């Protein structure tokens, strides 16, 4: 009886998450596009719903809500469904949509997408070999095998995003890094851009006129295409078409220049807006936060290095350590069990909410930057895949932040994975990502003012 009540609670919350994912998809991601394939929207919302249910079950674990056996059952079921989606459905659909976009292979969509999926499975399996993630006594198609591989990919993604975010956040918040941009700089650059456009236009006018006279005289200008075309153009050439190809090359170079100037001008406008923003109250607040985050970032890099160098994996979680410190060193006595439960609930809750929100914002930005009307379906499915793997590995890593008594459920459900490996791997990739982001941002920052001052 209690099992039925528990299940209905979980299923209601799943439906709520599904609705939220659906709305997010329609309002944020697909703002400028038309949804033609509803399968994509359904898959995205389902992935989101089941990932959020996993987090919800962790919270229930900490708070002690619901019956323990029904929690365990829902964990197992949730995990199976998520793995099914991430390994079977989404890759298959990605292959299917990629093939549908290519006109030539339109007829044999299904068999080719099956072939693509099999290739994906092969590489996915091979991924597990170089890593010591499992004890060898498990069978071949068990949950542990699949989860371990999904975990590797997800943890890599998390560490990359986390490393880049940790460095980028203070860089964007702090106004110390803002270059000084005046209105005259922008006007000068705009004038150069318009002058370049004028030169391009005058060359195109010559080309258009030349083409018109050639057309009226009955000649035809053939662009050299293919191997034989190029050979022919080397040996025989009409004088008119020679001229045209020369001018065309000049125009190509000028167009490249105009693109560069456009991007630089957009960059200058963006910097100017940021300078104005930093003078407002909100801007000053973020500037202050930026200093705070830069200290945090340096500390995290330092800790990651120490962990790797001294081969140390923390045994206790921050909550228990915090309580130990307050009890032993500060001598404050309080009900440890009660407080540890509430504090870990708050801490884990904050981690979950910020990571979901951060991921959704990053995915949206990424989607706006690279999608077009043709590829929007494929990109959304890729994002759903990334989101699913990210959330699964968050569950793996969050285990470290929880006191021992709450870790048991995750250990039980996910089986005997080498959790320590994942933490080590996270530290390594985080370090690599953070250091290369620092290098990358340093180079970009140095290069920009030089380009901008060049005559």
């Amino acid at each position, binding site marked *: 009886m209690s099992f039925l009540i528990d299940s209905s609670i979980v299923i209601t919350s799943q439906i709520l998450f599904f609705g939220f994912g659906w709305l997010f998809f329609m309002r944020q991601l697909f703002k400028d*596009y038309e949804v033609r394939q509803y399968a994509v929207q359904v898959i995205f919302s389902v992935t989101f719903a089941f990932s959020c249910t996993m987090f919800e079950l962790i919270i229930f674990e900490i708070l002690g809500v619901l019956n323990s056996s029904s929690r365990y059952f829902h964990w197992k079921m949730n995990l199976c469904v998520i793995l099914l989606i991430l390994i079977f459905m989404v890759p298959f659909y990605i292959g299917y949509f990629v093939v549908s976009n290519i006109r030539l292979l339109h007829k044999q969509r299904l068999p080719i997408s099956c072939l693509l999926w099999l290739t994906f499975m092969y590489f996915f399996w091979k991924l597990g070999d170089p890593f010591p993630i499992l004890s060898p006594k498990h069978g071949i198609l068990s949950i542990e095998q699949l989860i371990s591989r999904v975990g590797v990919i997800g943890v890599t993604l998390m560490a990359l995003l986390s490393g880049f975010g940790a460095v980028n956040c203070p860089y964007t918040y702090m106004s110390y890094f803002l270059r000084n941009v005046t209105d005259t700089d922008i006007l000068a650059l705009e004038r150069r851009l318009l002058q370049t456009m004028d030169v391009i236009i005058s060359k195109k*006018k010559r080309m258009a006129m030349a083409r018109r006279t050639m057309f009226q005289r009955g000649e035809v200008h053939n662009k050299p295409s293919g191997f034989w075309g190029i050979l022919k153009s080397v040996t025989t050439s009409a004088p008119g078409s020679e001229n045209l190809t020369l001018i065309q090359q000049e125009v190509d170079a000028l167009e490249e220049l105009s693109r560069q100037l*456009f991007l630089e001008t*957009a*960059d200058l*406008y*963006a910097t100017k807006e940021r300078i104005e923003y930093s003078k407002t109250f909100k801007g000053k607040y973020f500037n202050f936060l930026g200093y705070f985050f830069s200290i945090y970032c340096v500390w995290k890099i330092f800790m990651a290095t120490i962990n790797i160098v001294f081969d140390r994996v923390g045994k206790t979680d921050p909550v228990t350590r915090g309580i130990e410190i307050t009890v032993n060193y500060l001598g404050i006595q309080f009900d440890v069990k009660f407080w540890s439960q509430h504090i870990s609930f708050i801490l884990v809750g904050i981690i979950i909410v910020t990571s979901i929100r951060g991921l959704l914002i990053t995915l949206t930005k990424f989607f706006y930057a690279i999608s077009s009307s043709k590829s929007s379906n494929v990109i959304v499915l890729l994002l759903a895949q990334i989101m699913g793997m990210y959330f699964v590995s968050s569950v793996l890593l969050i285990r470290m932040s929880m006191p021992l008594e709450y870790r048991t459920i995750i250990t039980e459900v996910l089986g005997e994975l080498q959790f320590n490996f994942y933490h080590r791997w996270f530290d390594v990739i985080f370090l690599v990502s953070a250091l290369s982001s620092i290098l990358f941002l340093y180079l970009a920052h140095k290069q920009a003012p030089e380009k901008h001052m060049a005559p």
Partner: protein
Amino acid sequence: MASLDRVKVLVLGDSGVGKSSLVHLLCQNQVLGNPSWTVGCSVDVRVHDYKEGTPEEKTYYIELWDVGGSVGSASSVKSTRAVFYNSVNGIILVHDLTNKKSSQNLYRWSMEALNRDLVLTRVLVTNGDYDREQFADNQMPLLVIGTKLDQIHETKRHEVLTRTAFLAEDFNAEEINLDCTNPRYLAAGSSNAVKISRFFDKVIEKRYFLRDSNQIPGFPDRKRFGGTLKSLHYD
């Protein structure tokens, strides 16, 4: 050769609707083989005979400025794009017949481009939303072109074409629906080619032969003075 008069026409629309293919087709009478992202603005020139076949025939250069980007871009990109909207004589609005959102976004595109000139003549509509009355008074010649006609299935064609007819009416403009990968839609003598020719003629007329709506009609030398005065006003 460069001494012919010129007019400037903007080609606006969402990314991926086919503006670059359209401009290439209009200017070079060839299908664009490898369309790619337009960063910034790409220009092409078409040589047009104004009032072709009549004694007043004159050749003009029509500059087609194909501005890339999306209507929801960051404001820094919009400010950069605004530099291309100076002294525009006509606008071609391009939308994708298979994507309703691109048709809806045309209102926002036209607001973005026209607001530059409307500042000179009337009070700006402050909330930036589409206001039908502004278009009724609008002096700038507009043309609405729908692309990817070949991808619309026969059964849906009627519904789509009705929708686009309403759209063109809202803008008080002519409309053309075609497929940019097929040059026969713009073949000489077809109704589409006639509409385009008429549009370009209208643009040239507005620029060189008429000053504004309260012009004294029938003044014989207005052409010459109108031309030079016009260039002082806009440039």
